[in-house]
């Protein structure tokens, strides 16, 4: 029994160890968080990076610099800084297709399969990397943002 606890403890310890090891160098870590918030924040950032690299980096690139004028850079993004709510909508529902928008636009695809938690993790990662300093974006924040999205 004791032994079981010990292995469980070791696993947790190892996971934490790994996590702190992977702390992305490009990301901002606020210092005024208490320990619990620190850990939660770090987990969001780490998970967000994995999700970003899997779902977004083909267009926006691994270091957020975008590609030519086709895919915008997320470095110092004004959308992320000033209107993170619309960024949440964009991630979930893609570029809003207005009826009269010509065929000329390059669209960001919808990723409706992403959960609120995943979007929160992604936003926490990109909102605090490459010079962005948006702080922690929680699942609850995302849930609120998504209510305000105009469906399309």
């Amino acid at each position, binding site marked *: 029994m004791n032994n079981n606890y010990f292995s469980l403890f070791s696993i947790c310890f190892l996971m934490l160890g790994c996590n702190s090891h992977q702390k992305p160098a490009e990301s901002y870590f606020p210092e005024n968080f208490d320990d619990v918030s620190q850990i939660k924040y770090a987990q969001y950032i780490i998970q967000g990076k994995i999700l970003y690299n899997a779902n977004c980096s*083909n*267009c926006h690139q691994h270091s957020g610099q975008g*590609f*030519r*004028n*086709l*895919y915008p850079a997320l470095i110092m993004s004004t959308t992320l800084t000033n209107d993170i709510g619309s960024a949440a909508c964009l991630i979930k529902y893609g570029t809003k297709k207005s009826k009269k928008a*010509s*065929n*000329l636009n*390059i*669209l960001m*695809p919808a990723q409706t399969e992403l959960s609120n938690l995943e979007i929160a993790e992604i936003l926490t990662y990109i909102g605090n990397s490459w010079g962005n300093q948006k702080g922690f974006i929680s699942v609850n924040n995302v849930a609120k943002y998504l209510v305000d999205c105009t469906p399309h």
Partner: protein
Amino acid sequence: MKGYILIGCLFFFIGACKEIKPNFELPILGRTKIINIEVNGVLTKDTISHRIADFTFVNQDGAIVTNSSFKNKIYVADFFFINCPSICPEMSKQMYRIYEKFLENEHVSLLSHTIDPEYDTVAALANYARLLGVNSEKWQFVTGDKEQIYNIGETSYMVVANEDKNAPGGFIHSGAFLLIDKERQVRGVYDGTVTSQVDLLIKDINKLLMSYEQ
């Protein structure tokens, strides 16, 4: 036992060495066809290699593009569509590397076919090329009759290109880059989403260019 393993390894290495031929010529890909021809009044058989079929498309400037647009040029071809969510952004990035590498070389061209001609009109392709910042002398984006595009993709370039409701973005297609020589023959197939494959393609372009200089 150890001895066997050693001998096995030795064979393996020798085998591996044989694979590496530093100056081998690029293969001519595709099935060769046997045709009947008349030589000095006698009917004999000859083989012809697989060649890119005749095509007529329209590029981002609204200009007609045919095989003769690539006369005396080698070119890299691929199939994409503007709002492809998955592999095309990476393909564009890799193709752009080739563009930059051979920008000054008039013997090298790039040809991207849209497989979504309904959406990717001439104006949309022009906009795409503008955002990418490339010129139509070097890199042509073509649209045209959908059947002709799918058909040439499958039978000439030997890649998959088709509509598929279940695929991301509604189309199924391969991320292949094809290297075509001045004789309209396919000389190499590369994965346009993999940097190392495109490195190899760049090397092969140089190799193919050299073969015309000799």
